[in-house]
């Protein structure tokens, strides 16, 4: 058993990987942080396929309303609602969270801070098991009588609270249980990430020697831990409303439906930064490595991130500007929302400044990293418009909002994730991914992505409301020009989905036939690159690394090589 293997070898001692381990104990019940990271990654990718398929189906309905949809059939309004709801839920809770936080955090944190595993390996394994259970519960909820929950990913009561309204007597509670379980899983993961980073760093690694991505994942975990309590509280109350007949959110019986919105968005807004920060971290690492330059103003980025984290707890009501929030309070939340764009902008500019004067290498990972910076900018800027309460009264719940958050979430959950996969694939599996196929995949993802959402910005500004099954019933929205844009967006989506086959093929082929990577294919500085690819159980073999410098010493003057691994002993003083 992996656990026994782990107990046998003491702290930081040599691990030898030659125990006879069965498939089950090595890949299914492992406590090794790398395996758990893979489990999260592959589960997340599988869920992404489901979420993408759902998007395909409901986009087809919007482009060709009422027609039979290939690989689905005709789509009923109830099924449409359920697909939209679960698309959002899946992409946030079962794709962005597991892949960005859980997979990257698990795989990278111990390797980058130079320790042998998470400090609570069995808690870590439990975390994945609960996560898997949550995914299974969610999938079961699609097949129960009444179908899957269709009350939008924000689950506002009264629609979500009463089966008479949502007509999903089983789907709604199962959806809620699945989300709650998923959150508990990440709670356990978050405890591990924070404790490990604080307590288990390699000898010599001081606070400012920690790679930025590790900081970002830790700060994201702290944000998550601080914001998730209210969501759990709300979920329990909503579950009681659904199943026991309490009336916490029922205005007719002295409850308050807006209370749910507060509990949800108090979590919901920090949550967007929970997924944003790991993406920022990934792009930071990649930008430095492929620009061969030191990260511009490490400390400023770190402090901006902390400031952003704190501010993110004071903006939530910008989602509720038309929910009957006091207009005076909206000033306050408009102000905080505009303020929060400052630290975000600082980080973006720091990344751009890192590029300045670098010798940039346009690998696929770098292309995705640069695309993140460019595309996310559009998402952030449109967010500022939405944050102005006056503008938002018109734009709220239109496709403009939808396009805004897809211009943030897609760069985060799709583009940055691909950047990370192309960048760390050699470390994960010992081989490089094919660059030609990679670039093909890159352009095939980025161009259609803009093709989907730019029309939706225009439609949203034109008054197209969200969550509508068939626009042909609305004379103002049924015009041929608007319909053409819907068709264009849908076709772009299909093209984008089709290009993901290139990625899957590249992934599978490279696993078997990719060019051997060696320890440090990108000539990067951080500790994960000093060990074998893939790293053995215990990560660093005989001796654990010692750290002598920060993670971004690229192109240091007076050195022969343009990189300087964190663990390299300083022998000769440079001139």
């Amino acid at each position: 058993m992996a656990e026994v293997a782990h107990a046998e070898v003491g702290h930081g001692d040599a691990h030898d990987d030659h125990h006879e381990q069965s498939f089950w104990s090595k890949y299914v019940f492992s406590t090794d942080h790398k395996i758990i990271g893979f489990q999260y990654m592959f589960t997340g990718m599988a869920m992404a396929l489901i979420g993408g398929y759902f998007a395909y189906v409901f986009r087809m309905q919007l482009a060709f309303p009422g027609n039979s949809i290939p690989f689905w059939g005709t789509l009923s309004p109830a099924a449409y609602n359920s697909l939209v709801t679960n698309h959002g839920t899946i992409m946030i809770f079962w794709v962005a969270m597991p892949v960005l936080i859980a997979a990257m955090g698990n795989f990278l944190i111990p390797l980058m801070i130079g320790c042998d595993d998470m400090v609570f390996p069995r808690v870590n394994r439990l975390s994945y098991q609960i996560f898997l259970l949550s995914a299974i519960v969610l999938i079961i909820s699609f097949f129960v009588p009444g179908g899957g929950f269709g009350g939008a990913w924000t689950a506002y009561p009264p629609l979500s609270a009463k089966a008479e309204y949502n007509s999903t007597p089983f789907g709604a509670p199962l959806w809620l249980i699945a989300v709650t379980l998923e959150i508990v899983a990440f709670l356990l993961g978050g405890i591990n990430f924070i404790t490990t980073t604080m307590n288990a760093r390699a000898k010599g690694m001081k606070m400012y020697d920690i790679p930025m991505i590790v900081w970002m994942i830790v700060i994201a975990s702290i944000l998550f831990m601080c914001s998730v309590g209210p969501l759990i509280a709300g979920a329990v109350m909503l579950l009681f409303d659904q199943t026991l007949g309490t009336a916490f959110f029922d205005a007719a019986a002295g409850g308050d439906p807006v209370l749910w919105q507060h509990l949800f968005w108090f979590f919901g807004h920090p949550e967007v930064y929970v997924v944003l920060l790991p993406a920022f971290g990934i792009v930071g690492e990649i930008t430095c490595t492929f620009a061969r330059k030191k990260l511009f103003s490490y400390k400023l980025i770190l402090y901006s991130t902390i400031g952003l984290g704190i501010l993110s707890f004071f903006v939530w009501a910008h989602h509720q500007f038309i929910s009957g929030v006091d207009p005076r309070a909206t000033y306050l939340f408009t102000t905080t929302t505009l303020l929060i764009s400052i630290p975000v902008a600082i980080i973006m500019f720091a990344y751009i400044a890192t590029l300045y004067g670098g010798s940039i290498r346009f690998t696929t990972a770098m292309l995705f990293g640069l695309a993140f910076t460019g595309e996310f900018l559009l998402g952030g800027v449109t967010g500022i418009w939405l944050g102005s309460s006056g503008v938002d009264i018109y734009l709220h719940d239109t496709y403009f909002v939808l396009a805004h958050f897809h211009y943030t979430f897609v760069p985060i959950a799709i583009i940055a994730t691909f950047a990370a996969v192309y960048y760390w694939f050699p470390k994960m599996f010992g081989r490089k991914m094919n660059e030609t196929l990679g670039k093909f995949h890159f352009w095939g993802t980025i161009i259609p992505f803009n093709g989907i959402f730019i029309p939706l910005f225009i439609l949203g500004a034109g008054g197209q409301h969200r969550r509508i099954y068939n626009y042909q019933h609305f004379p103002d929205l049924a015009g041929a020009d608007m319909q053409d844009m819907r068709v264009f967006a849908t076709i772009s989506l299909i093209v984008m989905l089709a290009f993901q086959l290139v990625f899957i093929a590249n992934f599978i082929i490279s696993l078997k036939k990719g060019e051997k990577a060696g320890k440090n294919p990108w000539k990067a500085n951080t500790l994960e690159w000093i060990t074998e690819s893939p790293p053995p159980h215990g990560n660093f073999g005989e001796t654990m690394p010692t750290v002598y410098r920060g993670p971004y010493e690229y192109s240091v003057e007076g050195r022969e090589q343009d990189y300087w691994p964190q663990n390299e002993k300083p022998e000769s003083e440079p001139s």
Partner: protein
Amino acid sequence: MKTMEPAYGGREIPERRSGLSNGALGMIVFIGTELMFFAALISAFLIISAAAEAWPPEGQPRLPIVITAFNSLILFASGWMMYKAFQPFKIDPYSEATRKQVRLTMWLGIIFVGIQGIEWIRLLSYGLTMTSSQYGAFFYLIIGTHALHAIGAVIGLLRLSRKLDAGDLKEETFHAVQLFWYFVVGIWPILYVLVYLS
């Protein structure tokens, strides 16, 4: 510190972190989440009760203030016992004194949960349920959540006591259980004042 400057040799290397043990740090992070969880329940309670016409509503049984005050004392005593367990623990974790203190903590905790349970049964028989009113709903929601935490903590104490008897305990486990019990005891007065005395 200017560690972002390239360190040219001669840098002093600190040993592995000490400070807080893994168990203690992990538990502190967890308690932070718990605090936010209870804060949400409490703010929900405040919002709904402030909007109600009368609180407690007419025709609903009143909560047992006196018995629960007495029960609170038992809980505080239990917290005090846990605190007292720490001194002998530092000297000799497996001494009889430590084990006795931990057992006392646990039994006082069990008595607290037990009395709460009896009171709940009485309240139910008087007709206070989750669906009888917002009052009942919040009572069972908030106090029930606390009770679940108390039960969880008592199970933790039981395991701690077992491990002490077996002479096989990591110090960080002790700290983790201790911190969690402090949390359960420490949050109680706030809940008592809000829910029972409002």
